[in-house]
């Protein structure tokens, strides 16, 4: 039933074999009108029924604004639509109710790692958490174990310091001779480091780790994972790997991990963090035993 057309445009998309009195386009437009009226009425009714709203309890704090100096929780009732995420609800609350509501967010698709929050008692990315998957009221707090700057914004400096403490950059120095020639890496090796390279620095793991909470110098799951990403990359020479193991073996390195799996459970990118830390522990023991 397709019609041959050179250039599809808005005007030329009708079917030929339909009732003559009324073009299919007209009919559809009428139906559309009718549908719209119905849906609008439905929406109005639903909104009136109030069970279409979701209650958010959001942590508020601002050291500079007198009424927010004492931390408190604010309630927002956000109209629910199918597919709505916690971030969508926060944006709605900010744009419609209180433009001083402050939280980091950028990509809305779980790659920038800005909006890791403590939602209903667990570290999650607000952008990839569907409201329908949560019990109401939805309690939204800044990440635990980090200083709160304002509302849902926490100080990430310590996290960044730890990430950068593990020398998170490729240090291999021997490159192939030829012009425009890459170093070789086996697909297996690439597969081995694949999960570890997915980290988006959201800090959820660090926030969930109660060892990191107690020991401020502990490198934490994300940084150790970053070190793993390089230590296991076959492109780096052996002496660099040994150097990396030295960093991992320090007192506040891998040994602090108590295999509680909290980090692994909250990681929005499903990185097997605990597994990586454990593997580095074994590597450390192995590389030391070699020299006995």
């Amino acid at each position: 039933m397709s019609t041959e057309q050179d250039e599809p445009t808005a005007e030329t998309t009708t079917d030929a074999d339909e009732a003559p009195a009324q073009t299919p386009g007209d009919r559809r437009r009428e139906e559309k009108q009718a549908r719209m009226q119905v849906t609008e009425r439905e929406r109005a009714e639903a909104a009136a029924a109030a069970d279409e709203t979701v209650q958010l309890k959001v942590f508020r704090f601002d050291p500079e604004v007198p009424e927010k100096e004492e931390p408190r929780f604010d309630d927002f009732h956000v109209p629910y639509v199918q597919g709505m995420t916690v971030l969508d609800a926060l944006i709605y609350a900010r744009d419609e109710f209180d433009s001083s509501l402050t939280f980091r967010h950028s990509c809305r698709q779980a790659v920038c790692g800005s909006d890791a929050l403590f939602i209903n008692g667990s570290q999650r990315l607000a952008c990839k958490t569907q409201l329908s998957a949560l019990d109401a009221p939805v309690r939204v707090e800044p990440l635990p174990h980090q200083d709160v700057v304002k509302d849902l914004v926490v100080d990430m400096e310590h996290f960044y310091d730890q990430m950068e403490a593990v020398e998170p950059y490729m240090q291999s120095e021997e490159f192939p001779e030829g012009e425009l020639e890459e170093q070789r890496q086996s697909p297996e090796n690439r597969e081995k480091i694949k999960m570890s390279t997915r980290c988006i620095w959201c800090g959820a793991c660090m926030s969930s780790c109660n060892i990191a909470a107690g020991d401020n110098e502990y490198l934490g799951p994300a940084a150790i994972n970053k070190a793993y990403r390089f230590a296991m990359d076959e492109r780096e020479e052996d002496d660099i790997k040994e150097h990396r193991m030295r960093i991992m073996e320090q007192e506040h390195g891998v040994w602090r991990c108590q295999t509680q799996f909290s980090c692994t459970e909250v990681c929005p990118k499903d990185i097997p963090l605990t597994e990586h830390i454990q593997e580095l522990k074994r590597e450390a023991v192995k590389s030391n035993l070699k020299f006995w």
Partner: protein
Amino acid sequence: MTVHEHDVIVVGAGGAGLRAAIAAHEEGADVAMVSKLHPVRSHTGAAEGGINAALREGDDWELHAYDTMKGSDYLGDAAAVETLAQDAPQEVIDLEHWGMPFSREEDGTVSQRPFGGLSFARTTYAGAETGHHMLHTMYEQVVKRGIQVYDEWYVTRLATTDHDEPADRECTGVVGYELRTGEVAGFKARNGVVLATGGPGQAFDHTTNAVSCTGDGQAMAYRAGVPLEDMEFVQFHPTTLPSTGVLISEGVRGEGGILYNSEGERFMFEHGYANNEGELASRDVVSRAELTEVNAGRGVEDEYVYLDMRHLGEERISDRLENIVHLAEDFEGVNAYEEPMPVKPGQHYEMGGIETNENGATLIDGLYAAGECACASVHGANRLGGNALPELLVFGARAGRHAAASDRADAKLETGRTDESEPEENLDAPVEPGAVDAAGGDTAADGGAVASGDVLEGAVAQERQRIEGMLERDDGVNHADIRAEVQQTMTENVNVFREKEGIKKALRDIREARKRYQEVAVSDPSRTYNTDLIHTIETRNIIDVAETIALGALARTEFRGAHWRAEHQERKDDEWLKHTLVSWEEGRPDLWYKPVDLQGENKVYEPKERSY
């Protein structure tokens, strides 16, 4: 007043900014990056596809250049296109040496895959998250080199001299606002400023871009007197999730996913939009088809169509498209194994931008631009998949190098007005575009340049005053309302389908938004992490950039690449083989044209029918 002084200031820390910073550092310059986000939060991280580079036996930079020129619908400038194709391979190798986890072949070499519009499988990639790996790999290099990063510092304005002719002006630094403390400080650049602030996706209300993609660099450069080039060319992606704009990759259709409308028709075939390619037709064709369906009343909820991959079977889906299943689940609440996914077209990429030459230099001395915010003009009227990432590498590096060395020689492309440029005299604008009323406060009217005394200090002082003004105003309009208005009118009228009256309506609405912006107020009085203020400043940038897009769209009376006009259904090479430029002059936009450079190193690119 605090002034941070460095040789090179890079504004924006996404792919282009990081690459520029590394290049400038390699030149021995003292580099600092100033970014409103921490570098790893940048939107480069969302790029999925890959990096085109002629690396292998049988491929050649000339083929890459040819493909790019053809894809651009002959609106790319040959010098820039050829530079891209020539430099891309070395850039990819550098990335690899820096540790980028590229996908690999059995023999350990970097994998390449075929991409739409390419005559050779030359797209290098790292899984389905090439941008993420690229961004992180380059940030790692920045850490390694100890390059200073001022993160969560929002650059609100350039410090440029106020010579009458923009070409005589000089950029000496930028003004930044620290989110954490509310401090306004100057950043003095001894050698050069590189703008790498990304695209203006937020000019539309449905976009795959991050909320931070507000065209800041473009708007700042524009107000300082640098022309914006080819802004009407906006790429729309046909498959984005309706509620968030999250991108569903072309891979779904590549694997055999089908599109159908509310009546269950496989419209790409049944309504004859693309009888050969069907769902795999190029992005603009599919986007237009979807919107045609919706406009004809065959959309679901009058908004979207369905993308269905259930028939591929659970095994194949979980093997090859697992990430798509997660996206649909996490962002739309849809189980893609059991239901079709709702999709609609969304703004994806801005081909135009700050006019630069192939070294990333703008016509203002000391000001460079690279990445999506810039337009050396490699993408012309339409960007090929896999060409955005090499662009930001190649031109990021060149901009960084030149900014560090202050070396402005040897560019084939000219910037600014020349003998060959021609003015637009008959633009049928419905309202006077540009600044509303400079007397009513300069919030939307400033020209960017500073009159007297130390340029940077003057700019900081003015900016501080402007910010205080916005914070202190008690009653006024909320930026969110203004922004939403602009976004809606752009999406309604300057979208995939453009017709004259619609574009005019958009220009009127933008005018209205400008007027309302005169009364904008920031209700959050705090100096600590005031995102209300940041969004308010961004909104002005969105207004300025949206206006240039609409003006270009109104002026260009032809159908070329991503720019479709209802009244003008063919490409008019006789009349329109030229770039649209919009310059901000004395508070109002001035539209003019310059010819396309089709003279390559070894050949002339003759415009041909763009068919695949």
